[in-house]
């Protein structure tokens, strides 16, 4: 059934990482991406991989989940690896016609593959340990300085929140409408692509009509509860940095510093 689909990829848990301030998690995720791009040698990547593994272990999110997040990007990894392997100049190790593999090509390919894999697994950990709503909240507060230059941060966050709130409702509604039309003999499963798209019209129109009706009613209910945009608004849940946030910020800083130091003292791969 459609309604069994979960929103986002939040993996509920009670680990220190789950309880971290979302703002810090977002900042650290960005720092980690920077770390991956700063790294220039095997030791640097070693730090990056160790950091990721440690984070996964602390979070209690099974490694299986990390692999799951990597599944969709396998083609990209394969593509870039092949590209790097064959098209980077260096000392040829193997050659057949115009195809050749060089030592530099191999090391570059491995490095890019590690980078992409770590990047995806790392950002996935953010979404595994932070529910979409907390993430939205964190982003809203991180970006609040942008309000000064007229970026509608509150409005965007409110839209996101409402979207998240209504996804399960609309999924359930789609399910109901599909069943109702099937009961009137709609054939939604067979036929050519064009026929199938056409067959969806009886589902889509009621769905849109209903979404607009809901939007109307929701707007009214929000007005009744004195909603007037972001101005003068307070929040019940105040985000607070705790010891664990400070510690993880320190650890991350040390790791980045470490990667830079390793770059300087150990010969780059190429």
């Amino acid at each position, binding site marked *: *059934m459609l309604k*069994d689909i979960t929103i986002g990829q939040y993996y509920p848990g009670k680990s220190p990482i789950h309880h971290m301030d979302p703002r810090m998690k977002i900042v650290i995720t960005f720092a980690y991406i920077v770390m991956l791009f700063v790294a220039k040698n095997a030791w640097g990547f070693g730090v990056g991989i160790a950091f990721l593994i440690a984070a996964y272990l602390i979070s209690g999110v099974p490694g299986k989940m990390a692999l799951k997040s990597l599944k969709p990007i396998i083609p990209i990894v394969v593509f870039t690896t092949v590209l790097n392997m064959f098209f980077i100049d260096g000392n040829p190790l193997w050659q057949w016609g115009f195809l050749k593999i060089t030592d530099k090509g191999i090391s570059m390919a491995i490095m890019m593959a590690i980078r992409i894999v770590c990047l995806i697994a790392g950002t996935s950990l953010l979404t595994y340990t932070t529910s979409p709503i907390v993430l939205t909240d964190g982003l809203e507060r991180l970006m609040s300085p942008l309000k000064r230059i007229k970026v509608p941060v509150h409005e965007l966050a409110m839209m996101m929140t409402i979207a998240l709130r209504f996804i399960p409702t609309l999924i359930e*509604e789609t399910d*109901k*409408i599909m*069943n*109702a*039309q*099937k*009961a*009137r*003999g*709609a*054939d939604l499963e067979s036929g050519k692509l064009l026929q199938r798209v056409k067959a969806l*019209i*009886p589902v889509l*129109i*009621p769905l849109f*009509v*209903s979404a607009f009706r809901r939007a109307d009613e929701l707007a009214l209910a929000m007005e009744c509860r004195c909603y007037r945009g972001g101005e003068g608004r307070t929040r019940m849940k105040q985000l607070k940095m705790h010891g664990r946030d400070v510690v993880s910020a320190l650890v991350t800083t040390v790791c980045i510093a470490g990667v830079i130091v390793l770059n300087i003292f150990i010969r780059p791969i190429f």
Partner: protein
Amino acid sequence: MSVIKTEHLTYTYNGGSPFEKVAVDDVNLEIEQGELVGIIGHTGSGKSTLIQHFNGLVKPTAGKVYIDGRDIWENPKDIRRIRFQVGLVFQYPEYQLFEETVYKDIAYGPTNIGLSKEEIDERVREAAMFVGLRESTLEKSPFELSGGQKRRVAIAGVIAMRPEVLILDEPTAGLDPKGRDKILGQIKQYHEAQKNTVLIVSHSMEDVAKYCQKALVMNQSKVFLYDTIENVFSHTEELSAMGLAVPQVTRIFHALGARGVEVNPDIFTVEAGREELLKLLAAHHVRKGGAARA
């Protein structure tokens, strides 16, 4: 012959996962052709899942469903044919309307059957008549009608398929008393005219008592009772324990009985109650020496 028959019908949600839930549990049922049945049971009792088995929208986890003596899942590719045979009107069916005109919307089902234009036209007009829609309404957009009218259009959309069995899931939900009586009255008339089988899911025991011949009570995924209205409502205590209140008038007559008055306890409608009381009072006054009424 029974038009709907189930054998050990069982349906399990999320089978194999920790969220496994049995929604329909070993249901054996035979519904005769031409009956008007009220299906009652509180939310989560399995009644909605059960009715979706009758037209093949849900495939049983175990057991069989027979329509007109034929196993509907014998040939899964043929399942759409069952949907025309057993018409199902969902709760709040007005939210499924999508066409430009009422006429086209009612014609959607018959068109899916693949009927000729003339046949479709005949059926659309007939269905519109059953639910009391005027000729002039047929050319309007369904979105400009009132809530009650929209619902009648949606019901007509299923009736137009001329199903052998018509199932309605809470057709009166959210309607006011006037709208409710109108729709139930029309369904009853339709049933009398077509002489086909009609199943109505309802939360209102009063409505079931007033309009239906038989009642099917679902409780905790099982059929608790399937019998005539009299026999079902005589289980007042058990029904109340399930959270299904019998009609107030029935409770009044049970209370009178408990207080020592010799009354027929099988009173389910105000009309029947009135007859019973008048009979009782007349007898009482005769006994008292024919004292005149006030």
